């Protein structure tokens, strides 16, 4: 795992020693996977906006008229964020946005489950229909954890280790 970084100013680049270089590689792989995941999930949802709108509606947290418009917007937002992570542009904003989206989604799932609503996700379109709720939640927490680890590695203490 990462050693605590030495005191440096934002302008200096950080010298990478063995351990940090290895972890940096891990983070790059994680970025690739996360980016691919969000691009894939986004495209899948963009393909069937009405299906996604129905999935959002299942949570019963938003009125239909708002949910249906989000159903068009969110998938493309995921795709754009995934692409910017790959391209290393608008990177900080992208990660922050994804962390926000995944957290909100986990919260919404918890609320729905507490209300007894059976939400079969909808994250991966109808491809994700066969996963159990616990499985979905575990996957989402894993994604959130990965995002937070990447974020901390790249942007902790206002440093940019891009």
């Amino acid at each position, binding site marked *: 795992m990462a050693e605590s970084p030495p005191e440096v100013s934002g302008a200096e680049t950080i010298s990478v020693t063995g351990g940090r270089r290895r972890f940096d590689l891990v983070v790059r792989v994680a970025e690739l996977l996360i980016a691919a995941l969000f691009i894939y999930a986004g495209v899948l949802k*963009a393909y069937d906006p009405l299906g996604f709108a129905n999935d959002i509606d299942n949570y019963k947290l938003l009125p239909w008229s708002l949910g249906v418009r989000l159903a068009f917007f969110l998938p493309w937002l995921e795709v754009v964020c995934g692409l910017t992570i790959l391209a290393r542009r608008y990177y900080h*904003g992208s990660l922050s946005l994804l962390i926000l989206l995944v957290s909100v989604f986990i919260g919404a799932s918890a609320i729905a489950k507490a209300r007894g609503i059976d939400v079969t996700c909808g994250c991966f379109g109808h491809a994700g229909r066969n996963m159990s709720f616990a499985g979905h939640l575990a996957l989402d927490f894993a994604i959130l954890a990965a995002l937070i680890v990447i974020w901390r590695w790249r942007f902790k203490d206002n440093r940019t280790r891009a």
Partner: protein
Amino acid sequence: MSGIVARQILALCAVALLPAIGEAFYFRDKIPWQTPVAASEYATLAMAESWGDDLIWVDARTDAEYSAGHVPGAFSLNEDRWNELLPHMLERWAPGKKVLVYCSSQSCNLSRAVAHRLRTEVQIPDVYILQGGWEEWLKAHPK
């Protein structure tokens, strides 16, 4: 720093808005923007065929019409013998399967009545009515 992040987030949202609006424009006539349409309404024969094994056919016509000819594998389910016929269809049903009800043509009310009872009493999701009815199936599968 947070100012930069905020600006980036705004920019990302703006960029995402472009394809989103384009797609919404493309689908503008196909999406119910104000209220959701009940999932249980009409399905075309093409849609039905794309569902493959996940589909259960239900013939809402009378026993006599069913005996004279029906979609292969379709379950007869009508209001005359609802209690007797329903269990057979439910035996084949599992969550995730779609049910397609048909009767003698678009204007026939039998399929509507059967679909309505499946949705409200039996409370299974994904109940559809075949657009064009039995005639539509016959056109695609002439004897």
